[in-house]
């Protein structure tokens, strides 16, 4: 027999992610899916956010790594309101199914902001939603200014790009304008923050964006 259908291959994940999102929405909880290459500085950025916004925003983090709980340990030590490590045991991305059981265990009212720190990878995480409000791509200047062109889907699905390690620019051939231009080629209205987690440059602007995004999400709570 032959069956004709139009079935989205990623529909199973999309459905679970939509269910996750409904639960976050009920609590007015802002969820950000943070993605990057390995070593771009995701965990360091989150450590900075947690300590800089301590007493102001209760931040939770779901950490995704192939192996180890090193990142969740760092996040916990930074003073996060919630930290949970998922080990994907080989899978190269976090998906909706992986975070659903974690969400069951969480007190969603106790948080203002939840980050999902994805597995370091510029390819697969772009394909899989988790139930986030926004995807953020963190990019470090050491990766070379052509990467937004080489991984277009990642930079197209992310509404925000953080360009990290700008303190290293004087030592590199990378060109910040080129990075911006390449990212905007694939995402013309991309929101961009240039930052250095080493010197703290540019982080205040990002914290301001986080505060506003949290307030906007809370206002949608019915």
């Amino acid at each position, binding site marked *: *027999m*032959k*069956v*004709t*259908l*139009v*079935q*989205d*291959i*990623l*529909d*199973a*994940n999309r459905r679970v992610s939509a269910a996750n999102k409904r639960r976050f929405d009920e609590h007015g909880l802002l969820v950000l899916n943070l993605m990057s290459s390995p070593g771009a500085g995701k965990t360091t950025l989150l450590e900075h956010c947690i300590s800089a916004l301590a007493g102001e925003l209760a931040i939770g983090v779901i950490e995704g790594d192939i192996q180890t709980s090193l990142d969740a340990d760092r996040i916990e030590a930074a003073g996060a309101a919630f930290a949970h490590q998922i080990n994907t045991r080989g*899978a*190269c*991305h976090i998906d909706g199914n992986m975070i659903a059981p974690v969400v069951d265990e969480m007190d969603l009212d106790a948080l203002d902001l939840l980050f999902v720190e994805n597995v370091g990878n510029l*390819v*697969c995480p772009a*394909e*899989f939603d988790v139930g986030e409000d926004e995807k953020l791509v963190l990019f470090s200047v050491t990766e070379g200014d052509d990467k937004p*062109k080489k991984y*277009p*889907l990642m930079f*197209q699905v992310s509404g925000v790009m953080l360009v990290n390690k700008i303190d290293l620019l004087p030592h590199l051939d990378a060109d910040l304008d080129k990075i911006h231009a390449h990212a905007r*080629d*694939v*995402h*013309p*209205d991309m929101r961009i923050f240039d930052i250095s987690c080493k010197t703290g440059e540019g982080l205040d602007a990002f914290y301001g964006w986080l505060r506003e995004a949290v307030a906007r999400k809370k206002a949608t709570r019915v």
Partner: protein
Amino acid sequence: MHEASIAVELLKVVEAQARQAGMSRVSGMKLRIGAFRMVVPELLSAAFEVVGQGTLAEGAEMRMETVPLVARCERCDEDVAVEDYVFFCPRCGAPLLEILSGKELDLVEMWGEGGESP
């Protein structure tokens, strides 16, 4: 190598749809894949061959059709083909913010044994 991740999701869909249709074996399928997904057909086939082992879709033939990346230019009021992933209108230079096609990842046909023809 996101083809492996996609193959795993594809198998879930194929199994569910085959069950629903009462099929006992899936011998082939047709996929419609958007250009923006940057799927390498050979890699997806190879990945599916591995994940499909021991399932009702083991050894299933895969046919893939690519859907071009097309976006809407508001200013020209026209659909434009996106070249080299540059989301600006080649004619007027306006940003292309609405993707019309090219992100598909659809299973559109399956054939095999068992079940009743609709």
